[in-house]
């Protein structure tokens, strides 16, 4: 398939199928597992904080008023915002190191025919994988924390903590426009937020990697 003609050449198509890019990203994460795990831990903490806060508020609200709705204080939203910001800065820092460490690899890929956007996709894939895993783990950790909180605060108050927690989890949530049980809504919010956050934080490092001039990238000694 030819895209254009230059002199006597037929310039063909250059591609990097998603499955191949994804495989390479996954292998790169496995290779640098410890750092990937630390980066993911930042996401886990941020998202766990979000979930525990939301869930604790729901439990409290169901216990006091019988419905969800009474909720989170403004300052708590600020805390949440700051925690997610810190998490994003951590990811950016970690990905900047990951990109710098792989200058030579990026240069090599470009020698083999990779376009700027292929390099960008490689790093964004990694961020999606780490963000997704971090989101799920953070969601679980946050819920566990909230359940423990529920048992501790409701214990000995003449109510069955289990039924209150269950009601809190199943009450329709108001955090997203489409109403669904709080547990489900939190999962959706966690996943979307963690992946978007991780991608946004990786955009700048990935851009630097993608824009590298191959000659410079190859000259670079780690």
């Amino acid at each position, binding site marked *: 398939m030819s895209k254009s003609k230059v002199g006597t050449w037929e310039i063909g198509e*250059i*591609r990097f199928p998603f499955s191949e890019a994804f495989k390479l990203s996954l292998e*790169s994460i496995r290779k640098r597992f410890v750092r990937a795990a630390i980066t993911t831990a930042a996401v886990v903490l941020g998202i766990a904080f979000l979930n525990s806060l939301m869930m604790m508020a729901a439990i409290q609200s169901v216990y006091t008023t019988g419905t969800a709705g009474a909720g989170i204080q403004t300052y708590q939203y600020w805390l949440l915002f700051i925690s997610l910001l810190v998490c994003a800065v951590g990811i950016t820092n970690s990905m900047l190191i990951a990109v710098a460490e792989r200058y030579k690899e990026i240069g090599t890929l*470009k*020698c083999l025919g990779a376009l700027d956007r292929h390099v960008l996709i490689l790093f964004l894939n990694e961020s999606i994988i780490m963000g997704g895993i971090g989101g799920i783990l953070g969601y679980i950790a946050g819920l566990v924390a909230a359940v423990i909180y529920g048992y501790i605060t409701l214990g000995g108050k003449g109510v069955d903590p289990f039924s209150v927690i269950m009601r809190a989890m199943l009450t329709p949530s108001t955090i997203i426009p489409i109403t669904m049980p709080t547990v489900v809504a939190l999962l959706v919010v966690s996943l979307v937020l963690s992946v978007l956050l991780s991608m946004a934080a990786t955009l700048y490092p990935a851009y630097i990697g993608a824009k590298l001039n191959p000659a410079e990238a190859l000259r670079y000694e780690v």
Partner: protein
Amino acid sequence: MRYEYTVETEDLAKYYYMGKYVVKALDGVNLKVRRGEYVSIMGPSGSGKTTLFNMIGGLDRPTRGKVYIDEVDISKLDAYELAWLRARKIGYIFQTFNLIPVLTALENVMLPMIFVGTPREQRIKKATELLTIVGLGDRLHHKPGELSGGQQQRVAIARALANDPAIVLADEPTGNLDLQTGLEIINLLRTLNKEKGVTIVTATHDLKMIDVSDRIVYLRDGKIERIETRAEVTVEL
């Protein structure tokens, strides 16, 4: 399409500006490489070998002058066309091998074929063939970390040949290898050049390379000092 000259440079120059100093890494290089030729570029470090390599390989843009690969002036290419040039027309071999560490030998050789869209079955077949040719038929699924330096360079050579490039550029291919392994790599390159007609340009200061080269280009301070054909060199020795 058959081209007589695979590489042609015309008054090629690359200057680096460091504050008020100008470093003339290359300064007016005119070089023609015929199809099927084995050319070595020799010179002390800092003579501009690697810069010339980068210019011919489409990895960097010249300050002045032109580079033709298969009769096309590559300074006129846009980013997409340059990527295609690197994938299709040029095979690169580096001093530090530069294999992708997380991929096996087979996957490394298959990578350039992915970029040009070769179907998977064909990729596996071709990569296996090439690795067998370079003597690694039994190491297909090893990762670079599990291979010796010489073996890694063999994988890199197989990878360089994956898309049947017009030219293979080798920058100090023996620089990180011991004498014996270096000799093996040089002989492998020569064999590929003779038997498969691969055009090879190496930048080197390895004197062993002289024996196998059709021509030796001596570079000094960014200029061609002299060019010798192998017959002349043998007489000199």
